[in-house]
C-alpha cells in the first residue's frame, strides 16, 4: 500500500549533527525557500566555525528564539519535504537532550519510519539505546541507523562495522525487524542525498534513496472503524461524521455502534463532492445508517460481525509526560479519538528501564518514565491492542485540574473482569427501599481537619434523624481504617484509595435506601469530587466542618497533633499535608459552634 504522506521521526541530539542532516536533506531536495537558505548563509551563532557564505544547515531547523540562543532544539518541529514520485515526507524533529522521552514519544507517535543518529566519533551511547527502545515501543517498525560524522574518523569501515555489531543485541531484544545502517557525513554531504567516493566499501543506497524506497507495509489488522466525531444534520439528513481508520467501508455493510452494540446497515457514504460506494483508511466521510440507530459523538462504528469488544479495564503502557507524578486511584480524563471518559489507574505494574529493557517496581510514574499500568474507565470503550493498530489502541490521559496532557497510553490488552462480572439488576430498586422507610436516600459527606468535630456532628445528626423515624448510618473514617482500609497509609495515593473505598461503601448503603453520613477527613478536593460523581445530583451533599487548625490541635481528641509536633506523624492533614478547602461544599459548618446548632442547620438544609 502506498501512502501519499510518509511521516519520519529523527532521533539524536545536536551533537550528533541531526539539525545539519535534516537541513541538508531539505535544501538538497529543494524543500526550503531560497531566502531562508540565504539567511542560513549569512547568520551565524556564536562559536560557529562554518565559513561565511556556506550554508549553516543547522539554522534551518532550529526554531524558537530561546532555543537558538542555547543552540539546542527543545521542542518537536515539523518540516515538509517533497519526494520523487509525488509523495510527501513530513519530518518530526525530536530533540535529543532533556525531556527526550517525552519529545521523542510525541514525534514517534505518528511516524512510519525513524532515523536514529549515531555520532561515529563517539560510538554508541546510552541515548542510542533509548531512541531504539522508544521507537519500538511507539510502533515505529522501520528504522535507519544513520552513522554520521564518518569524515571525522577517516571514513573508516571498521568504525561503521563496530557500531553495527554493538547494536545487534538491542535490536534483537526489541524485535526490530526492518533496520538498515547508512554511513554518512551530513556536514560534507556524503551519502545523504548524493553518493560519495569517500566510502568505496559501502555500496548501499544513500539516505534519501533509502527513504524513498520505503513503503508502508500493510499490517495484518485492516478492519474499518469510524470514530463518530459529530452528528451531521441537514434537511432530511442525519449522518455520522468521522474519519475511517484501518480498512474499508462500503454501502450495504452491516455495522455495529459501539459501545451500545446496536446494529444497522450503511445506506449512504456522503461527502461534499458526492456519495461514495466505498471509502477507506484516512477518508473523512459521513455515514448514514439504516435504520437510523442512536449514535453519538465518541461512539465507534465497526463491521457488525467483526466488532471489537468494548471493555472498561485495560493493561497499557504509559509514557508519563506530566510534571507531577502519575499516582494510582487518581482520576484522569482518558481521550481516545473523539471518546472522552474519566479513568483511574488502578495499579502500576512496573516501570521500564529504557536503557536495558528491565522492569523495575514502582509506586508512581515520574516525568519521562514509561510504565505498564492497569486502568479502569467509567464506562466501556472500544480500544484494541496498540500493536494491532496504533490509531485504535492509543489514548491520552488529561489532568482534570490543569487539563494538560499528562500521559500517552498504548493498550496492551483489555482485562475482561468487567465482562465476567456483569452488573446484576435487582427488581427492588433504591427508590422502593427508601420509600418503604418513608425517606429519600442521600449521602451527607462531612469533610474537615482531624479534630474539627466531624464524628461528633455525625453522631448527633444520626441521633436526631433516628428520633425523626429515619434510617441512617454513619461511616466513620477511623472505623473504616480499622477494617476495610487497614492496608492503607496516609500518602497522597493511599488517601485517594481510602476515599474511593469509603465512597463505594457509602454508595451501597445509599442504594439500600439509607441516609448515609460519612465522617472523613478527605483532604483533597479531587477525591471528594470523585466521590460526588458516584451519585445523582442532589443526593450527595458535601459539608465542610470548618474549624481553625489551632482549635483542632488544642482539642486533639486522639493525640495526633502531639505526635505530629513530635515528628512522629509526618502526614497529618493541616500539619504535614495540606487540606484543600471545600469550595464545592453545599454547606459550611462552623466547627467551633454548638453541636445542636450544627445539627439543626443540617436538618433544615437537607431534610426539610
Amino acid at each position: 500500500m502506498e501512502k501519499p504522506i510518509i511521516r519520519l521521526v529523527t532521533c539524536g541530539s545536536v551533537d550528533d549533527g541531526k539539525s545539519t542532516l535534516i537541513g541538508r536533506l531539505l535544501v538538497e531536495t529543494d524543500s526550503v525557500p531560497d531566502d531562508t537558505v540565504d539567511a542560513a548563509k549569512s547568520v551565524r551563532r556564536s562559536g560557529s566555525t562554518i565559513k561565511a557564505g556556506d550554508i549553516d544547515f543547522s539554522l534551518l531547523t532550529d526554531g524558537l528564539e530561546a532555543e537558538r540562543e542555547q543552540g539546542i532544539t527543545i521542542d518537536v518541529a515539523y518540516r515538509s519535504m517533497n519526494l520523487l514520485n509525488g509523495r510527501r515526507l513530513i519530518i518530526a524533529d525530536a530533540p535529543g537532550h532533556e525531556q527526550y522521552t517525552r519529545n521523542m514519544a510525541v514525534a514517534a507517535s505518528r511516524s512510519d519510519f525513524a532515523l536514529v543518529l549515531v555520532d561515529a566519533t563517539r560510538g554508541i551511547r546510552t541515548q542510542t539505546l533509548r531512541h531504539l527502545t522508544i521507537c519500538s515501543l511507539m510502533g515505529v517498525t522501520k528504522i535507519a541507523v544513520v552513522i554520521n560524522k564518518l569524515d571525522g574518523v577517516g571514513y573508516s569501515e571498521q568504525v561503521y562495522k563496530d557500531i553495527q555489531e554493538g547494536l545487534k543485541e538491542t535490536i534483537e531484544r526489541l524485535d526490530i525487524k526492518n533496520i538498515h545502517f547508512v554511513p554518512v557525513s551530513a556536514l560534507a554531504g556524503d551519502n545523504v542525498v548524493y553518493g560519495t567516493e569517500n566510502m568505496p566499501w559501502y555500496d548501499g543506497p544513500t539516505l534519501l534513496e533509502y527513504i524513498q524506497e520505503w513503503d508502508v507495509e500493510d499490517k495484518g489488522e485492516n478492519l474499518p472503524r469510524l470514530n463518530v466525531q459529530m452528528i451531521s444534520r441537514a434537511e432530511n439528513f442525519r449522518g455520522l461524521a468521522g474519519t475511517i481508520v484501518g480498512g474499508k467501508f462500503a454501502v450495504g455493510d452491516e455495522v455495529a455502534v459501539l459501545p451500545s452494540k446496536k446494529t444497522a446497515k450503511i445506506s449512504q457514504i456522503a461527502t461534499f463532492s458526492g456519495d461514495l460506494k466505498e471509502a477507506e483508511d484516512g477518508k473523512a466521510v459521513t455515514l448514514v445508517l439504516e435504520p437510523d440507530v442512536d449514535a453519538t459523538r465518541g461512539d465507534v462504528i465497526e463491521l457488525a460481525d467483526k466488532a471489537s469488544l468494548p471493555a472498561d479495564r485495560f493493561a497499557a503502557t504509559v509514557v508519563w509526560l506530566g510534571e507531577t507524578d502519575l499516582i494510582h486511584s487518581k482520576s484522569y480524563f482518558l481521550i481516545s479519538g473523539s471518546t472522552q471518559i474519566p479513568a483511574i489507574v488502578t495499579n502500576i505494574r512496573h516501570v521500564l528501564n529504557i536503557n536495558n529493557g528491565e522492569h523495575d517496581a514502582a509506586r508512581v510514574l515520574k516525568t519521562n518514565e514509561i510504565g505498564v499500568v492497569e486502568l479502569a474507565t467509567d464506562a466501556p470503550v472500544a480500544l484494541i491492542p496498540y500493536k494491532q493498530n496504533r490509531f485504535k489502541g492509543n489514548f491520552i490521559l488529561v489532568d482534570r485540574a490543569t487539563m494538560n496532557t499528562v500521559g500517552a497510553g498504548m493498550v496492551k490488552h483489555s482485562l475482561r473482569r468487567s465482562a465476567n462480572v456483569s452488573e446484576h439488576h435487582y427488581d427492588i430498586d433504591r427508590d422502593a427501599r427508601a420509600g418503604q422507610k418513608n425517606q429519600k436516600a442521600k449521602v451527607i459527606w462531612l469533610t474537615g481537619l482531624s479534630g474539627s468535630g466531624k464524628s461528633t456532628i455525625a453522631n448527633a445528626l444520626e441521633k436526631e434523624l433516628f428520633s425523626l423515624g429515619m434510617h441512617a448510618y454513619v461511616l466513620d473514617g477511623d472505623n473504616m481504617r480499622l477494617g476495610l482500609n487497614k492496608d492503607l497509609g496516609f500518602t497522597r495515593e493511599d488517601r485517594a484509595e481510602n476515599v474511593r473505598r469509603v465512597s463505594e461503601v457509602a454508595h451501597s448503603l445509599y442504594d439500600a435506601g439509607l441516609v448515609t453520613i460519612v465522617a472523613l477527613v478527605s483532604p483533597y478536593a479531587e477525591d471528594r469530587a470523585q466521590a460526588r460523581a458516584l451519585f445523582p445530583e442532589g443526593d450527595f451533599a458535601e459539608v465542610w466542618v470548618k474549624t481553625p487548625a489551632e482549635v483542632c490541635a488544642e482539642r486533639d481528641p486522639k493525640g495526633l497533633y502531639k505526635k505530629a509536633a513530635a515528628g512522629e506523624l509526618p502526614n497529618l492533614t493541616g500539619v504535614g499535608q495540606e487540606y484543600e478547602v471545600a469550595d464545592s461544599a453545599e454547606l459550611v459548618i462552623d466547627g467551633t459552634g454548638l453541636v445542636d446548632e450544627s445539627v439543626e442547620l443540617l436538618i433544615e438544609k437537607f431534610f426539610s
Partner: protein
Amino acid sequence: METVISSPSVLEALENESIEIFRETAAAFRKPVMLYSIGKDSSVLLHLARKAFAPGPIPFPLMHIDTTWKFKEMISFRDETAKEHGFELLVQTNHDGIKDGITPFSMGASEYTRIMKTVALRAGLDKHGFDAAIGGSRRDEERSRAKERILSVREPGHRWDPRSQRPELWRTYNPRLAPEQTMRVFPISDWTELDIWNYILQENIKVSPLYFAKERPIVWRGSQMIMVDDDRYPLKDGETPEIRRIRFRTLGCYPLTAGVDSDATTMEKVVKEVTELKLSERATRLIDGDKEDSMEKKKTEGYF
C-alpha cells in the same frame, strides 16, 4: 533533482486530515469561531470547512479583523463570499486605535500590527466569548510555527507560552480547557504554500482578484512596490503613482503589502509563477522583516 510537488494524492490526504480537525473543533468546543483574513489560506480554510460539514452548514461564524487599511478589493471579495456561501460574518475593528490616530504610517509596522490586529483579535474573541479560534497558519511559514501544535492552548489573556505547549500525539487531540484558557486551532498546519496554490487550482476555489496580475497604481518604497489603494496613502512631494502590472502573493493592509511584477492572470499562471519563484511569501510582507523572531514575539502576545 526533479521533485513532484503537491500531487493530487498528497492534497487529498491533507484535505482529509484538515476535515478531521475541523469536525473535532466544531464538536468539542462550546463556541468556536473561524478567523477569516480574506487571503488564499483563508479561502482554502473556508473551502475545507464547507467540505467538513456538508451537507450541513458551517456550524460557527467567521470573524474578520478589519484594520480599515485592507485593500478595497479584499472587503468587496469578503462580502461577496459571505453572501455566496451564506456563513455568518463578524467584523472586528479596534476603534480605540483609530480614534488614537493609529495608522500604518504613525508607527513601526510591528507595533501597528499589535494594536490594530492582535488587540482587536483578543477583543473580538473576548466580546463573543469564543473558546476556540480556527486559523490558517501553516508550519512551513516561519520557524516558530514549525513547532506549534495543531490544537494550541492560550493562557488567560490569550498568551501563547511556547515553553508549556501540550504534547500532541497520534491524531488524538486534547480539546479540554482549564478556566480562562482558550484554544487556537490550525487545521492546515501540515500544508505548504505550494499545496495551498495547487489545491486552489485543483478545486477551482475563488480567491481575491488581487492575486492576479493587473495594471495597478504603485509607488516605490525602498525596493518594495506599494499599491496606492486610496487617497489616505501619503505620497512624497511631487510623487505620482506609476501604473504597473503587478499582483500580490499575500494580502494584508495595503500600505504594508508589497506587490510583485507579474503577468499571471489565471490560476494556472499563478501556480507556475509561485512554483518557479519559490521566494518565501513573507519576505514580501513588511512586518516580519522587523526583527528575527518577530513572529514568535507576536504570537506570545496573542497574534495568530
